[in-house]
């Protein structure tokens, strides 16, 4: 074949209707097939992020999410503000122009003074939103992602305060909870999620979590060797103290600053285990008062 730009697999389908997808297109764009029964996720490497927001745009386009937050926030280049019902990718911008009240005069390598990170639903395992959902609208898919079934959600809103990362939100338009689906529909069709596919620097990488993790660890080691000793993984399975109580985040991050610089909680915790000690103390209080009522002789004249 002439040229050499097209992938070998793409050439296999040259005679297909170009408007339809190539089967297992993810194999071309990520080198990995998308198969049910495996855990897929994102590895977001912030040292590669250039803050172009292509991921935000691709996400809105593919998922047909309406525009919101029109206007300027004054928070660096972050005019998106936060993740929400209609915003499933959010690029954070944090300008570190100085330290301790003094202007910075030296520049560490990689995202020197400008921290950028594309935030997203972490597809936690276990997922606090899913554990809270009373209707079963939130469920874990065959790709280990966490998705809201729109035809079941009744808008009780309990998943919203349950999420330790402030991701899921109720839409005022339709009264249902919405969040990133890890492009469930695309995965079913063998396509890489829209944000990862659109990322020009491969800061967002999509793939099987185990494989992403290996690559991420190698990346951390390489950055350490190249003079960025602060690089570490946030939310990766088995990372000490990364996710306090939540086993792992299927969407995890490589950071070079403290988590709060990217608006990430340093040690998020699983909310569900707080219910049992709570209910027991409450029942003890009621039982005590019932016993007191018996002693007082409530019911006698």
């Amino acid at each position, binding site marked *: 074949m002439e040229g050499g730009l097209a992938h070998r697999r793409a050439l296999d389908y040259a005679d297909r209707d170009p408007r339809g997808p190539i089967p297992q297109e993810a194999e071309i764009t990520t080198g990995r097939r998308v198969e049910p029964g495996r855990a897929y996720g994102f590895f977001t490497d912030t040292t590669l992020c250039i803050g172009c927001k292509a991921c935000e745009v691709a996400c809105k386009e593919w998922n047909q999410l309406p525009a919101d937050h029109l206007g300027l926030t004054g928070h660096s280049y972050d005019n998106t503000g936060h993740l929400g019902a209609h915003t499933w990718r959010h690029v954070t911008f944090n300008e570190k122009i100085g330290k301790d009240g003094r202007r910075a005069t030296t520049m560490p390598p990689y995202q020197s003074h400008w921290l950028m990170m594309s935030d997203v639903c972490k597809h936690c395992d276990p997922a606090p939103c899913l554990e809270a959902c009373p209707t079963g609208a939130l469920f874990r898919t065959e790709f280990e992602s966490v998705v809201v079934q729109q035809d079941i959600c009744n808008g009780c809103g309990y998943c919203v305060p349950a999420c330790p990362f402030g991701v899921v939100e109720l839409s005022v338009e339709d009264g249902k909870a919405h969040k990133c689906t890890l492009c469930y529909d695309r995965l079913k069709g063998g396509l890489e999620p829209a944000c990862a596919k659109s990322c020009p620097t491969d800061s967002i990488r999509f793939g099987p979590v185990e494989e992403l993790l290996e690559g991420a660890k190698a990346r951390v080691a390489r950055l350490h060797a190249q003079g960025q000793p602060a690089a570490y993984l946030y939310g990766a399975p088995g990372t000490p103290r990364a996710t306090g109580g939540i086993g792992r985040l299927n969407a995890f991050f490589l950071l070079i600053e403290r988590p709060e610089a990217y608006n990430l909680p340093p040690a998020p915790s699983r909310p569900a285990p707080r219910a049992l000690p709570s209910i027991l103390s409450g029942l003890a209080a009621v039982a005590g008062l019932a016993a007191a*009522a018996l002693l007082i002789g409530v019911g006698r004249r």
Partner: protein
Amino acid sequence: MNEATRPEGWSGETYHGRPVTKASSFDWKVSAYIALLGMAGSAQVIAAVARRAGGRRARGLVRRARLVALAGSVVGPLVLIQHLKTPSRWYNMLRIVRPTSPMSLGSWLLTAFGGLSALTALGALFGHRSRLARRVADAAQLPAAAAGAGMSVYTASLLSATSTPLWAAAPGPLAAQFGAASMAGAASALALAQRRAGEVGSARRLERLAALAAAGELAASLLAERRWREAGVGHAAQRGRAAPLLQGAKAGGMALPLLAHAVSGRRSGLLPELASLALILGGAALRHGVLQAGNESACRPEDAFRHADPRRRR
């Protein structure tokens, strides 16, 4: 691996002062539900105790307690459904059982409580005519009381099982607070009813119970405040929008009526009735204040970061 470079606790930095977590959509309808069903639940506990301690002499009180429970379990769910953003799908609450979700278990508990309360209400409504109704009601009384105890407190567990800093920081005290407030509310409502019915002696006993519950409510409130202070998440409750409501509930809805009940002794008349009313309203104000303050704390990144500080985790 990366442990050496992993940042320890929270540094005090926020991301442009933006919230980390999102606030719940729980509004006055939810606080009204919590207060109503708490009272209904505790009324069943009182009905069971009265049935045991008073036997046939307690007939009037038991009947009124069962009616309070019935009223609560009819009105409460209707109010709660209105809080859903898609109320037409309320029945999806009973689509699955999710053991990790206090809201799921609570929905089933509410259903059971409603059913049992309907059974005990049979006794209240038809007991004087039908022996069968009396039998059924008496058989359902103990399970109804058990479900009622759950109804009195599960809403606090529901709040604590979230990432909202204020609710998550004090799971135990919050539930004790809600439970005591439920008992105080139920005892006060029934005391009012007993006074209206002319059963002053019985009303006095209920008022004593309400006073005890108010003392418990007050103690649990102080404990919750201490937990909030220790966790550094108490700002919304102490200085936020809900602070006046919470302070008012403590003073006017717990301490003052407690005092009033203590000094009114055997006297009848306006003072004990006012105190009962204040206890009912105080319990409702407490629930609404906790709800509001929690929603505010969820929007404060300082609270969220302190709550998620690794130094706080063992």
